[in-house]
């Protein structure tokens, strides 16, 4: 009797475990037009300096001054500081139409940043009220972040919200005009300009050599779990969520606005529900506080140092950046 009972229990347990572990086969996702040709143009970065955003779209003096601007390009800085992103976008459009790669990239960033609001302004407000009523631990930070997007994007309407496919297309335009950040973002979005090992590896090296904080943070999702098992990235800083965070922290060191009000932390909070409970924390402090254990923080610092200080800066690579 006892043997039969235990046999029955074991069988039952095995069945439950098998059901729990089962999942449907995951076919490889379509990554878009693999045959798309890459026709990166010349680097037109110099044009960016000619752009001077309307003063009315700029923030009050002193805002956003907590972050380094050493490596940040003027348009990215203007994007982080603009109080009215609709007006900022309108100012930027002619430059983008003229083919400026940075203008095209920053336009796509504005569209992405404001999409959650623009898609349904009334629904955005309803969701904010719903979230406020849930009394979450992160409610205050989440409410502040949503309020920031509501304020900065307040003049956007549903027709301004890009779909995922439209966002990919805009970034393809930017990348083909020469924006490295857009090219990196396309890899992270599963729609790289080319889909071979040499291209992926070369792109990662070009981003690292560029020391462009926007390119670093745009590439970061592709350097996390998505890069696990990719032979092309085997000996790079890639493969886990910690690696992706290292790329983002490196971007902070290179000048990205990683303050509590910056786009990086705002999007983490609004789009991902990952909000710093302490409003004084910047992204670096938040990650050390909430994402990794103390020993993991040391490893994270090593990775970040590798990215920032050991960038392959050979003439050959610099040539590749601007090809």
């Amino acid at each position, binding site marked *: 009797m006892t043997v039969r009972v235990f046999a029955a229990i074991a069988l039952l347990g095995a069945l439950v475990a098998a059901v*729990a572990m089962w999942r*449907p086969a995951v076919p490889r996702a379509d990554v878009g037009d693999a045959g798309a040709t890459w026709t990166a143009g010349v680097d037109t970065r110099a044009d960016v300096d000619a752009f001077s955003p309307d003063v009315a779209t700029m923030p009050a003096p002193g805002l956003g001054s907590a972050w380094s601007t050493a490596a940040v390009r003027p348009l990215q800085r203007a994007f982080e500081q603009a109080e009215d992103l609709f007006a900022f976008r309108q100012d930027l459009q002619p430059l983008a139409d003229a083919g400026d790669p940075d203008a095209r990239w920053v336009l796509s960033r504005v569209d992405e940043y404001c999409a959650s609001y623009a898609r349904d302004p009334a629904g955005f407000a309803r969701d904010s009220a719903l*979230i406020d009523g849930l009394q979450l631990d992160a409610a205050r930070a989440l409410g502040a972040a949503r309020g920031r997007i509501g304020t900065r994007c307040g003049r956007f309407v549903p027709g301004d919200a890009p779909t995922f496919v439209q966002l990919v297309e805009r970034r393809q335009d930017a990348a083909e005009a020469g924006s490295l950040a857009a090219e990196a973002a396309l890899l992270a979005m599963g729609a790289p300009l080319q889909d071979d090992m040499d291209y992926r590896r070369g792109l990662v090296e070009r981003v690292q050599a560029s020391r462009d904080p926007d390119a670093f943070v745009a590439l970061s999702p592709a350097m996390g779990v998505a890069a696990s098992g990719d032979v092309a990235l085997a000996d790079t800083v890639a493969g886990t969520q910690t690696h992706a965070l290292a790329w983002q922290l490196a971007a902070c060191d290179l000048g990205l606005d990683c303050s509590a009000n910056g786009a990086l932390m705002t999007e983490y909070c609004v789009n991902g529900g990952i909000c710093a409970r302490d409003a004084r924390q910047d992204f670096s402090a938040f990650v050390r506080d909430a994402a990794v254990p103390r020993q993991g923080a040391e490893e994270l610092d090593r990775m970040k140092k590798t990215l920032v200080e050991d960038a392959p800066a050979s003439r050959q690579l610099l040539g590749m950046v601007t090809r």
Partner: protein
Amino acid sequence: MKRMLPRKLRFWLWATLFVGYSVAVAGVVVDAVGEKYRRLTQVAQTTTAAPLEQRQLGAAQIAALYRAQSATPFLALPPGNTFRVVWPDGSTELVRIVSQSSPHGAVPVDGSQIEAAPLLDGAQAELQVVPVSVAPRQAASVAE
């Protein structure tokens, strides 16, 4: 002990313990919630029959609210994780996390969609965490 517990009770006690252990080892966590998710703008009208974009946005919104309730949000539904979403009409599908900061950070897994059973009509949106699987290198789809 044997005298204190009837044979059938002993059987079910052991069975419960063993099944519970098996489930725990398999890594399955079921966290069913409802009202708060169902009322979200991107979730309310979404079913497995909705366009991919709408399902992506709805799933990402559910994942965001799930993380916002967590004491360790970075570790809740990290990239590469898969979870099962049950839409308000009862239809269900697996969704893979590809980014924690993008509104398109959750991608429905092709072939995982199950239509609503008649008995489930009127059910609430819920989220179930299922065992982690390795993410493909590029999970997002720009087709459709």
